[in-house]
């Protein structure tokens, strides 16, 4: 018996923007339907249309039935009886989804009171119970806090509490964990599972993260350009995708358990919803395209086993049992020359030695006085050899970005040394400073914000060249554009004419303009869609190998790091907890934090995800203004909890330093009780190899 039945849903916005075209699905009681798609694929618009929350200028047609009752076209009074009672929604960004001026408790209680005739004090009590249910510590006290006093993970828990306040039959989760760190994501997904158990609700889970879907969903609906292109049971979709887009998507994601080779990118960009191609919308990017694909849009047809696919060649794919790597061209990336020389014999291009960066915490409006110190970066050391990529990973607030800023400043740090290409940043004069700038360049996270919207791309790339007085600017700009996979005629266009992936390529071209030796990459692919991300990762790898670059790569996505980096340093609260070669750290993590971090990452493999044991961390990151004594991780450490009192003493009193671990060549751990645990089970194809 299905709770929700969506039939042929269409949403059109003014200007002929067909955001959703013919979406149909059903959700049963206790079932989780995952909707996957890239930005602009219409997955969020679909759910807003079901809730009746689209702006009034959107034209919605089709049918949405809840328990057999039509929802579309209901008047507001009837609709408000359904919203928040039968169907609840969990939104992506929990900070902006809460009204900033009311307490969390009041907002949860409001949700209760809208649908249940309860007096105020009873509703407030119920709110506290709900907050307790979703695992918020001291719920009675926290209910009186305002949204800005909650951390991201806690806010999302509160959001879930609000959504389940009236025992809904259906929960729609719109990217519920996208804005969260992995360890917090793992906690929140657990809470969602609890919430489902408590309410028995059906869940529609919208996300772009194929790993999250693999662990949560029973069935999956893949959307592209406003249309469902494939639907089926989660295991079928992941193990035997039958639509080239799904196949490409699965092949393009980097995996923490994956093999090294280049990723398989899907070329091109999703079509604009105003000018859709006449045939299959994916045809322009599809390697299996035949002439018939352009004739008409293939309908979503049943292919047996409860699966539906919208591709005219699905039979053939089924028959030959093709996968993404068979169909999509695998790019060839030339190997690096640098790695032939052992690491110790290569020159060191960047070295940090016991660097700290503290920020004063000020109070007072007129007379400022220092009331504390934020220990943003608190004594970290690492080095990068020529031709090497070191990744700095950790959750938000661990000091990754501060470290980058300290390096890019090229000034003496408060303590310690920053040595770039053999030159100490504390000893630079003005001329040397400028010269070194050209050797050390940065690529930013958000390609939208990093490019001046009023400057043509050619000028953006030429700017560093002109600043350093180069003569051959025009020639060099052409060369750079080609190098990053764009065309020279793109130089005259403005950033707004490019997609996210192309913009990031422009950012990379600008960083490469002065032939730097070291490139600092600040989350270069985290703002990009999965299918685009693979192309940029491959580009970065190719550039490194052909130009002999060295990268300092900051990321929170550990799968991308595994793919791109040679060495990795894990940071926690301004300190390095574990550092070493990628294989050592990923396959034999010895620090409890690294273990928890790695185990929190969802794998895009339903069978593995179901059987995997997660190491869940409690609570949130402590404030860097007041870090715990001794080992900073001890307050959340699962290992610390298992130690005897005498052993715990050491963690509290003595700060662990990064020490070489076991007999590994390149593996340092900052833990008194370091012990290797395998947290990523090898995937099947790896075992076969």
């Amino acid at each position: 018996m299905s709770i929700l039945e969506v039939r042929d849903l269409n949403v059109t916005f003014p200007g002929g923007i067909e955001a959703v075209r013919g979406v149909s699905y059903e959700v049963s009681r206790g079932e989780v339907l995952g909707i996957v798609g890239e930005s602009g694929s219409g997955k969020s618009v679909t759910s807003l249309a079901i809730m009746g929350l689209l702006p009034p200028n959107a034209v919605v047609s089709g049918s949405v039935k809840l328990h057999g009752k039509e929802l579309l076209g209901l008047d507001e009074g009837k609709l408000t009886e359904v919203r928040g009672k039968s169907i609840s929604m969990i939104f992506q960004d929990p900070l902006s989804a809460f009204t900033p001026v009311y307490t969390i408790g009041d907002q949860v209680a409001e949700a209760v009171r809208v649908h249940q005739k309860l007096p105020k004090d009873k509703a407030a009590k119920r709110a506290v119970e709900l907050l307790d249910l979703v695992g918020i510590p001291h719920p009675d006290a926290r209910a009186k806090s305002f949204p800005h006093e909650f951390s991201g993970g806690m806010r999302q828990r509160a959001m879930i509490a609000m959504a389940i306040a009236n025992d809904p039959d259906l929960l729609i989760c719109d990217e519920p964990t996208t804005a969260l760190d992995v360890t917090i994501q793992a906690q929140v997904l657990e809470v969602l599972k609890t919430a489902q158990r408590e309410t028995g609700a059906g869940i529609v889970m919208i996300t772009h993260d194929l790993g999250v879907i693999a662990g949560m969903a029973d069935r999956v609906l893949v959307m592209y350009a406003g249309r469902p292109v494939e639907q089926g049971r989660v295991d079928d979709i992941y193990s035997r995708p039958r639509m080239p887009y799904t196949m490409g998507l699965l092949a393009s994601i980097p995996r923490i358990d994956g093999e090294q080779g280049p990723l398989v990118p899907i070329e091109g960009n999703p079509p604009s919803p105003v000018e859709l191609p006449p045939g299959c919308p994916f045809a322009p990017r599809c390697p299996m395209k035949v002439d018939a694909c352009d004739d008409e849009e293939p309908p979503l047809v049943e292919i047996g086993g409860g699966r539906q696919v919208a591709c005219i060649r699905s039979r053939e794919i089924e028959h030959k049992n093709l996968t993404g790597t068979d169909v999509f061209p695998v790019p060839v990336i030339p190997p690096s020359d640098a790695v032939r020389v052992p690491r110790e014999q290569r020159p060191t291009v960047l070295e940090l030695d016991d660097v700290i960066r503290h920020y004063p915490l000020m109070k007072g409006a007129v007379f400022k006085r220092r009331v504390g110190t934020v220990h943003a970066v608190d004594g970290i050391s690492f080095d990068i050899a020529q031709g090497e990529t070191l990744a700095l990973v950790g959750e938000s607030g661990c000091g990754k970005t501060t470290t980058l800023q300290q390096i890019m400043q090229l000034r003496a740090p408060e303590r310690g040394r920053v040595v770039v290409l053999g030159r100490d940043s504390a000893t630079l004069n003005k001329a040397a400073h400028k010269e070194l700038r050209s050797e050390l360049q940065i690529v930013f996270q958000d390609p939208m914000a990093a490019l001046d919207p009023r400057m043509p791309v050619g000028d953006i790339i030429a700017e560093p060249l002109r600043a350093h007085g180069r003569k051959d600017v025009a020639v060099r700009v052409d060369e750079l554009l080609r190098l990053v996979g764009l065309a020279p005629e793109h130089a005259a266009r403005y950033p707004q004419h490019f997609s996210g992936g192309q913009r990031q390529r422009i950012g990379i071209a600008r960083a490469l303009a002065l032939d730097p030796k070291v490139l600092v990459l600040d989350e270069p692919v985290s703002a990009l869609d999965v299918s685009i991300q693979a192309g940029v990762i491959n580009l970065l790898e190719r550039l490194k190998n052909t130009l002999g670059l060295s990268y300092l790569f900051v990321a929170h996505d550990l799968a991308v790091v595994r793919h791109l980096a040679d060495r990795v340093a894990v940071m926690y609260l301004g300190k390095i907890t574990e550092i070493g070669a990628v294989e050592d750290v990923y396959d034999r993590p010895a620090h409890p934090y690294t273990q928890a971090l790695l185990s929190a990452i969802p794998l895009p493999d339903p069978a593995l995800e179901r059987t995997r044991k997660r190491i869940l961390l409690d609570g949130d990151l402590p404030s860097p203004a007041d870090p715990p004594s001794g080992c900073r991780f001890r307050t959340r450490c699962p290992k610390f909890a298992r130690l005897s009192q005498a052993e715990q003493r050491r963690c509290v009193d003595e700060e662990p330093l990064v020490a070489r671990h076991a007999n590994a060549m390149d593996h340092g751990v900052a833990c008194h009780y370091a012990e290797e645990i395998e947290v990523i089970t090898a995937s099947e194809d790896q075992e076969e190899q």
Partner: protein
Amino acid sequence: MGKYLLRRLAVNVILVAVAASLAYMLAATTMNPRAAYEGRQPPVAEAVVDATLDAYNLNDKTPVLQRYATWVSGVVTGDFGKTWNGGSVNDEMGRRIMVSLRLLLVGTLVGFALGVALGAYSAVKQYRFADRSIGVSSFVVMAIPVFVLATLLAIGTYNLNRGLGFTLIEYTGEYNPRLSGWDQLLNRLNHLILPTISLSLGSIAFYSRIQRSMMLDVLNQDFVRTAMAKGLRRRTALLKHALRTALIPAATYFAFAFGTMLTGATFTEKIFAWHGMGAWLIDSIQQNDVNAVAAVSFFSAVCVLAAAFLSDLLVAALDPRVRVS
């Protein structure tokens, strides 16, 4: 929180002292009370003039700092000195202060409430007829100086009353001295109508523009959507979640708008023949009445800073983020 407000209050007291002192200095150095006694027929002896001016602390032969010191020692004890002809500034102020405060208080409240309501309504109906007509009217009102507006209102009412054949709305003065009891109260209220409109129209226009843009910022925020997803009606979600949040920035403009209000009050009082502080300011400048000018300036400074303090209180009440830090 209480400490924060106390500190703001202390700062405001200092600011009042500075503003009033500067106003006194300006008045004392540029005005010439002696002019009122010179050129009289029959001429007054200089010694007599000096003695009179000395008695009123208005003699320009006394160094200005000394006069200032005398004035301050008076003000601290609550005595604002003598007018140019020997009357008590305190008495005059006592007569006028309530007249002005009544006008200002009602004008401010009406201006703020109506302005915010219109602005919010305008934002919800963005680009519809209601929004456009509110927008155009606001700009028309803002483009007309208050003295023109007040005069137009007075003329319009005069014609209306003449057309009706009886006085529907009073357009001059503050009350009718022949009435008493309830009739007098109603008559006072009737007299209040026109000056209030003239005074508040400007701030209604001002607040409606500000509130409209604040509201538009908030309307598309996720939390309004969340509120509707909970099952609240659009109206409730807009009032309880959107407007409440959008009020915070408008409250900070409260202090700024009050300055304009004072200027408006001066013209309004003069045009509708109300004997308030604003009208007195103009009269005393014409009469070179230093102490009266200083007293009115003091009153204005207190009003502006009270408005600023009220605006702080309002923001603190509306925004928990301010309260906590």
